[in-house]
């Protein structure tokens, strides 16, 4: 029997999702043995035309990482969608927009202005910014369009499964690959990770008080973080209660609070709203009846950059999607 064809592709991403495939270590040999990799720009020299030459639906599964920022991303994922039986949104950026999705707090013009004109290391007296079409002596040069708004993969093409995380951890990738090879996949649209909150598996869960009351928000660089105590009990924002588990509590074990890269558990429409709601509930809980409005305001203002804190990985997937301009 012919081996199932598999493709990997990257859109607006950092390369970490490619790195995590390499982090499969020896397991990558099992994968490489079981499948036929037909496209993987970071590692193999196949071109777009090679994908285009395949018959529709002939790729068993495409793992696509990165958010959708340019016309090229859109064109490539549409092509891969047509050629693939399954599409897996791989990593936070494809899943929810991820870090590149924070670009939705700006516009294309503002980004071009900054990156191509204002940055101190840029020398650009003519103020040239990328154009979709440019006429030069030898003809017309083209560049993919840079969109104003970053989109998630499923806002661009239908997606069958999601592998969450920044990046997804090797054990969840192997589980997903095995499930695909055995044809033992859950219902379409599922996130291929446990559906419990991170606190449930957190090594610090025992130190999480029954009733948490935050007297003052502390940012990680402002305190010497205790190595064992629940971050919330230390007054540090941890999105564990609002975030899906399955990452192996990577940040917690490195003494950093959860920033939410796995996204919410199922049924939550807006990850940031969930996190905001959770933190607001805990602020000054013990003293709430005695606090004046000014006290409350001061405490609430201790959450510096709420939008960036609660939507660090999920702005394009949020209800508001982007800043209004």
């Amino acid at each position, binding site marked *: 029997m012919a081996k199932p064809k598999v493709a990997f592709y990257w859109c607006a991403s950092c390369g970490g999702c490619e790195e995590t495939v390499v982090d499969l270590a020896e397991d990558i040999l099992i994968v490489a043995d079981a499948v036929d990799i037909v496209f993987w720009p970071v590692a193999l020299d196949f071109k777009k035309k090679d994908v285009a030459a395949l018959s529709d639906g002939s790729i068993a599964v495409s793992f696509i990482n990165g958010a959708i920022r340019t016309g090229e991303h859109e064109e490539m994922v549409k092509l891969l969608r047509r050629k693939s039986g399954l599409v897996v949104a791989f990593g936070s950026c494809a899943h929810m927009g991820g870090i590149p999705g924070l670009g939705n*707090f700006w516009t294309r013009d503002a980004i071009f202005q900054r990156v191509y004109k204002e940055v101190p290391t840029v020398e650009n007296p003519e103020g040239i910014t990328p154009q979709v079409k440019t006429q030069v002596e030898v003809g017309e040069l083209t560049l993919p369009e840079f969109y104003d708004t970053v989109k998630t993969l499923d806002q661009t093409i239908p997606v069958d499964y999601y592998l969450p995380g920044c990046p997804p951890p090797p054990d969840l990738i192997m589980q997903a690959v095995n499930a695909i090879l055995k044809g033992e996949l859950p219902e379409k649209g599922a996130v291929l990770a446990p559906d419990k909150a991170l606190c449930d598996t957190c090594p610090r869960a025992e130190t999480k008080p029954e009733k948490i009351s935050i007297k003052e928000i502390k940012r990680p660089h402002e305190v010497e973080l205790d190595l064992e105590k629940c971050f919330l009990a230390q007054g540090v924002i941890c999105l564990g209660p609002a975030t899906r588990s399955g990452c192996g509590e990577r940040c917690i074990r490195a003494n950093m609070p959860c920033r939410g890269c796995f996204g919410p558990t199922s049924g939550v429409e*807006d990850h940031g709203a969930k996190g905001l709601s959770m933190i607001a509930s805990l602020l000054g809980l013990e003293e*709430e009846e005695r606090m004046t*409005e000014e006290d409350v305001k001061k405490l609430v203002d201790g959450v510096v950059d*709420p939008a960036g804190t609660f939507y660090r990985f999920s702005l394009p997937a949020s*209800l*508001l999607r982007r*800043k209004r301009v």
Partner: protein
Amino acid sequence: MNEFEPKVVVFRCNWCSRDGETSKMESAANTKLIRTMCSSRVDPSFVLKAFASGADGVMIMGCHPGDCHYLSGNYKTMRRVMLLKNMLSQFGIEPERLKLEWVAPSEETKFPEVVGNFTSKVKELGPIR
């Protein structure tokens, strides 16, 4: 040109109102009333969803501090609204488009008054971007 009539969503706690008023307000142009059992039932995502669906203003109405039927729901509401306002401005949505008001069932005239004032305020702000 037609005058701008803002679309306003009012989440009203069941215990800070009397029956009857609801139907009166619902007939007011472009005001959508949604009754919840407590102001704290208004999840921040409800507010965001209202704005994402084109509401020009969102008002949350709860019992006065100390009077929440479930004891302390309204304190949470206050903190959520404050935090939401800070966040909305980062999204380019004027924080004044979200308003929290405390109303008791005995304050019969207050309800239409605060909704009216809020609607005029939102009208000044103009349509949401």
